[in-house]
């Protein structure tokens, strides 16, 4: 069976194609449209998925939307009714969006794909998240925990999955859920907005800012929450405004307690101790709440295995604590934890629900995106007037690139199929030497044009990872393979990993698996031979506010617009830039649509 999963209308629209239970292609729309967090119907991603599989829309057996839109609408109306008369602006804006597009998911898909209405199915939001984790994990029986801002009504859910291969029994069900407005994701996002960052984008910045502060506001944040012994909680809505105001997420009472909110884009937040302390406090409370939810999942299901998804599952610091303290033997986290991942989960769930013979699948690598032929790479380099050489195989490429990195150069790295999920894992990466502390500032300021306080991650040969980092589990464990959890850099090694160790000694490690990422592993290994440190500084191949590059032409344009020293695309390596590069880089649009991060 050919099943297409889609997510759109909120943020990070995506498509995923599952054939006989196995994902063959998946990608977010932003990679193709070049519009960050593009939320429109993912026509380009769908076209890519179909093309990759050699199918047409007529070959699809089902198209599955990642949530139940009408159920979501009941929640929005209930919210507007409950907060009347202060929800007028929210009601107008939400209903405008619903009347314009959100009510018509089915007809829009029919029109875009030409499929019959009965082929269009809908998988609940948290079930899609749960399926994206369980049906990609190596487990046949596991607990599921999904935590995000909000789906239809649910903001978190505990469930259980069981499967026994083709023809065997399959069950994935949700046991209990927390419901809107009581939401860990919305709590974290309210603080993201308070700290002056864009919601659904700036949560990483809050996490990166937290180590600069002390959690002296944790008590005040805990006072906003009514916790229960079973890990569930309620928010005291007096502190928030997201349930009644389309433009504000926190109330006056909130600002009275924490001080004035930071205006977006104003000053360096890391220079303001109060803001750092607020970030540290909300991060700590987030970790505590996640631990409570995970322990309840353990208690309810009795399973020693956990599958985790939802936007909050991308909080790598909280994931490290979960790995260490929640009581599970193994944890598998969906690398596309946010709503893009819902497209894959919806398709996988439908594959198992509709087809008894769906294959058993395990996601070992994240390379589900598009691949571009070497010819398009050389064309893009030539078109830009870049001088380049064709390397003599992968060893030669890795030798040359590791030499450049060890010499302090910053290299753009575009190889193979693009990654599924927001992390660059060695297919669309900007690489540098992880050893010298100054490299962090260089890459932040000159390459990515982003905030200086933000840390970078190391990608290290998996076999060596435990020597350099105090991992919360075996180095080959999936969360480290997909850069989904932090670990302490070992104290005696911090001097040699200064560019990738954060101020608190933590690091968001990627343990590079030689079987899954042979080329990238070879590069990290080559770095080990040259520098004694088998690792590279690895950050996503994009500039601040832009989507990660997709095509060689995107990579060349980004290279020309930044201060990178060299660019490796496939076998080709360019180590200089032309005086007057042509074509001039286009300035990509950044998302101008008003944020509807609060799920209305």
């Amino acid at each position: 069976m050919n099943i297409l999963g889609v997510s759109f209308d909120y943020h990070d629209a995506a498509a995923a194609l599952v054939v006989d239970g196995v994902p063959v292609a998946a990608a977010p729309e932003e990679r193709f449209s070049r519009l960050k967090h593009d939320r429109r119907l993912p026509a380009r991603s769908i076209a890519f998925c179909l093309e990759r599989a050699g199918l047409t829309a007529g070959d699809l057996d089902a198209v599955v939307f990642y949530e139940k839109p009408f159920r979501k609408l009941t929640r929005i109306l209930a919210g507007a009714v409950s907060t009347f008369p202060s929800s007028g602006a929210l009601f107008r804006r939400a209903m405008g969006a619903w009347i314009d597009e959100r009510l018509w998911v089915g007809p829009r898909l029919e029109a875009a794909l030409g499929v019959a209405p009965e082929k269009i199915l809908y998988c609940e939001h948290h079930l899609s998240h749960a399926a994206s984790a369980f049906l990609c994990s190596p487990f046949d029986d596991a607990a599921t925990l999904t935590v995000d801002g909000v789906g239809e009504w649910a903001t978190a859910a505990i469930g259980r999955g069981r499967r026994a291969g083709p023809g065997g029994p399959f069950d994935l069900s949700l046991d209990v859920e927390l419901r809107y407005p009581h939401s860990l994701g919305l709590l974290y996002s309210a603080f993201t907005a308070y700290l002056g960052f864009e919601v659904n984008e700036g949560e990483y910045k809050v996490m990166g800012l937290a180590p600069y502060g002390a959690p002296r506001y944790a008590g005040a944040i805990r006072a906003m929450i009514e916790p229960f012994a079973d890990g569930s909680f309620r928010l005291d809505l007096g502190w928030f405004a997201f349930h009644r105001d389309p433009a504000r997420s926190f109330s006056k009472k909130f600002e009275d307690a924490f001080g004035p909110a930071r205006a977006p884009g104003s000053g360096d937040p890391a220079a303001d101790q109060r803001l750092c302390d607020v970030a540290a406090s909300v991060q700590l409370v987030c970790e505590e709440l996640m631990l409570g939810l995970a322990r309840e999942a353990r208690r309810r299901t009795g399973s020693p295995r956990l599958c985790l998804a939802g936007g909050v599952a991308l909080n790598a610091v909280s994931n490290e604590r979960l790995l260490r303290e929640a009581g599970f033997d193994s944890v598998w986290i969906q690398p596309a934890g946010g709503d893009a991942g819902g497209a894959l989960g919806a398709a996988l769930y439908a594959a198992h629900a509709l087809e008894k013979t769906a294959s058993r699948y395990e996601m070992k690598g994240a390379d589900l995106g598009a691949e571009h032929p070497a010819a398009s790479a050389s064309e893009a380099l030539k078109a830009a007037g870049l001088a380049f050489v064709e390397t003599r195989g992968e060893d030669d490429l890795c030798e040359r690139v590791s030499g450049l990195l060890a010499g302090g150069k910053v290299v753009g790295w575009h190889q193979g199929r693009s990654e599924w999920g927001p992390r660059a894992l060695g297919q669309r990466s900007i690489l540098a030497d992880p050893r010298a502390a100054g490299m962090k500032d260089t890459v932040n300021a000159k390459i990515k044009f982003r905030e200086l306080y933000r840390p970078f991650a190391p990608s290290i040969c998996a076999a060596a990872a435990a020597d350099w980092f105090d991992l919360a589990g075996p180095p080959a464990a999936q969360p480290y393979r997909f850069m989904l959890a932090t670990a302490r850099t070992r104290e005696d090694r911090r001097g040699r990993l200064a560019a990738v160790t954060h101020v608190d000694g933590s690091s968001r490690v990627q343990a590079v698996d030689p079987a899954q990422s042979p080329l990238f592993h070879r590069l990290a290994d080559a770095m080990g031979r040259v520098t004694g440190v088998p690792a590279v500084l690895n950050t996503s191949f994009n500039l601040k506010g832009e989507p990660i590059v997709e095509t060689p032409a995107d990579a060349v344009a980004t290279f020309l617009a930044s201060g990178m020293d060299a660019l490796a695309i496939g076998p080709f390596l360019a180590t200089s830039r032309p005086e007057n590069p042509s074509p001039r880089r286009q300035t990509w649009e950044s998302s101008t649509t008003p944020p509807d991060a609060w799920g209305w």
Partner: protein
Amino acid sequence: MRAILADARRRLLAGAVRVAAALGAVLLTVVYWLVLGPVALTLRVLGVDLLGVRGAPSTAWTPAENPDPKSRLEGAG
């Protein structure tokens, strides 16, 4: 001439979109006060707690419904 016509058409369309948006906002405001308002006040008088602000005293978990896998995929609501 064609460019002038195209420009006029674009302006007309943009104007129509603005008028439609304004009309829509007025209509939605009317619906908000005349439909949602009475419903909200009635529910408030009846003590209905749609957002679960005053839920059970010992937990915020709600049991999830689990219809059979095939039928759970049917329908947008």
